[in-house]
């Protein structure tokens, strides 16, 4: 990240660049959400806890992430505390 980049933070020069940055950010956000939910799950968080922290319903978070995580960790979750 050079100085030129820093001066542009939050205000890319061209509208198209600005819009594309938003698209890229959305992509990144999705990947980060998936990673963080997975980490929380492995750390033993329940879907309800994860949902609460994300500020969405339990159903929403389950629908979006459960299948992927269960496919990745078939059988018992690797590190589930509590239940």
């Amino acid at each position, binding site marked *: 990240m050079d100085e030129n980049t820093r001066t542009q933070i939050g205000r890319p020069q061209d509208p198209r660049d600005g819009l594309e940055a938003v698209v890229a950010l959305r*992509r990144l956000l999705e990947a980060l959400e998936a990673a963080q939910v997975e980490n929380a799950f492995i750390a033993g968080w329940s879907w309800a806890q994860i949902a609460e922290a994300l500020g969405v319903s339990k159903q929403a978070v389950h629908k979006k992430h459960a299948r992927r995580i269960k496919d990745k960790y078939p059988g018992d979750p690797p590190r589930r505390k509590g239940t």
Partner: protein
Amino acid sequence: MMIIRFTDKSRRCVQAAWEEARMLGHDSVGDEDLLLGILRAEEGLAAEALSSLGVTLERARDESEEMFSNALSSIGISLEEIRQEAGDAFEMRIPPGRRLPLSPRAKKVLVRARKEMRRLGDNHLGTEHVLLGILHNEDGTAVRLLAGMDVSPEALEDRLYKLRSRRAAG
């Protein structure tokens, strides 16, 4: 709904576009994914024209990644740093449960491709028509992706027509 009669080859390219989009974490199949699909499926005149100009799947994916990374750094985010810090769970891939729509740009490409097919007097939509559709979309991501590899739409189009006439002659 637009009815398109694809050739087997172009259908496989379009299917491959979906796989590429999913792998790269795109939430829709864009015009650049159609290009990557052609390269991934490695089929038809389009793939031949691309590879003759040195465009490979590997290079195109790298270029796409580069554009993604540049878009993020324009708002002060380093993809590299995030990758390192997020750890193993971080991946761009879209999980299988989620359906990816065709982006408006990719739709425009297919509409254009069908026009090219008619203009050339063909009755099935081949890979070359898809590529012509992609190239026609000057504001598209695919054209910029190609520009990043120093390949101009004109050069590709030219190569495509040459290969086509060679096929017709042979």
